[in-house]
């Protein structure tokens, strides 16, 4: 028998004037690191790092399920609403969680769409963060699939979504973690993956903002896996080169969900990334 150190609670915050009940988890103490999951998934993607005693000895890892995802409810009236995530709502949600938890300039670590919004926040709200770890993150890629596939009355969007995103998992990933990663997509609520992909594959607004990111105020470190078909190393390199001072690491044996699909393979890259972020004392100073 074992009990993990991760604890979970709920908070209610207002986004776009509407209350949202949000589930969050945390583990560790010290420098706050807010972790954002990918499209179509939830906080469970971060559980390996949150259970890593060496990392949590000096970092307070916090992850939350976006509204509509995981254990966070959709807003009241969702039954008649088409879920389409926007840059504005995503930013407002992240900032509302930071305010709600009273986090003082956390490091922001986001993967995929979480990495995209991390770069948006680096451009627009850098003062609220001490640094950015943008994983499988890039300026923009249009969809190489039809996002409407994943929300149809005649098929299971979760199973189709999982089958599609398996293309982004490295063959080096342990089988158990490959399938744990895909399970989250299989569980995703109807239309949620599609609504996330709408943000991820249609909003190009980050491209002209990359040049205004000031990495002297808050560092930006981008990490990308070679087996990521959605955000390829070329996409990440193009993005990093457009941000003055940004750094980049390429993981040869990982894919689009590194912290979830292959925790051991990702661990050294995340530790290196944390090392590039300001220490808690530097943030307080």
């Amino acid at each position, binding site marked *: 028998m074992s009990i993990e150190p991760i604890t979970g609670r709920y908070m209610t915050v207002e986004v776009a004037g509407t209350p949202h009940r949000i589930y969050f988890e945390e583990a560790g103490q010290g420098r706050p690191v807010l972790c954002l999951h990918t499209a179509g998934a939830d906080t469970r993607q971060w559980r390996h790092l949150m259970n890593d005693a060496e990392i949590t000895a000096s970092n307070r890892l916090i992850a939350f399920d976006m509204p509509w995802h995981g254990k966070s409810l959709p807003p009241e009236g969702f039954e008649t609403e088409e879920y389409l995530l926007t840059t504005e709502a995503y930013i407002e949600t992240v900032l509302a969680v930071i305010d709600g938890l009273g986090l003082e300039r956390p490091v922001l670590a986001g993967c995929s769409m979480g990495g995209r919004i991390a770069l948006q926040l680096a451009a627009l709200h850098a003062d609220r963060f001490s640094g950015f770890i943008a994983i499988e993150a890039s300026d923009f890629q249009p969809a190489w699939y039809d996002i409407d596939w994943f929300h149809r009355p*005649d*098929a299971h969007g979760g199973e189709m979504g999982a*089958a599609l995103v398996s293309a982004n998992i490295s063959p*080096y990933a*342990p089988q158990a973690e490959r399938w744990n990663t895909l399970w989250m997509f299989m569980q995703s609520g109807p239309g949620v993956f599609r609504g996330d992909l709408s943000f991820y594959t249609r909003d190009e607004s980050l491209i002209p903002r990359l040049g205004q990111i000031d990495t002297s105020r808050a560092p930006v470190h981008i990490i990308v896996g070679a087996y990521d*078909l959605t955000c390829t190393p070329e996409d990440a390199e193009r993005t990093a080169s457009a941000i003055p001072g940004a750094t980049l690491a390429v993981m040869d044996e990982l894919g689009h969900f590194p912290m979830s699909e292959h925790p051991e393979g990702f661990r050294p890259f995340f530790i290196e990334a944390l090392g590039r972020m300001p220490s808690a004392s530097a943030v307080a100073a």
Partner: protein
Amino acid sequence: MFDKFRQIQSRLEGAPHLLRLGRLFSETVLVVVDGDEFYLSFEKGRLLSVVNGPSRKTPWCFALRTDAEALEEFWKARPEPGFHDIFGLVKIGRGRIDGDILTLVKNLRFFKEVMALPRTAEEAVA
């Protein structure tokens, strides 16, 4: 290449979870390898027949067109990036998928795992 499809046929018979996943899949899939046509006819998840083309009389649902070298890499336990998935082949310009894509997507896990059956358990390093 024909032997590889025969291997898929026999391994599928030994994969009850795939037969269960494919229980509603009764379609003919065209696989074109270096221009050679192979018609894979599935019935309720079983691969009933593999027929060499060319054929102008065999209707098919969707097609995967690629080359033998790409498939050889695809069937390795740890293929190079892009060769690890049929959509990866498309993304890197070594494959093309056409026809009724929606039927493919509805049965995507089944078809991807069927196509990957030549990756032997011995080769599949954990």
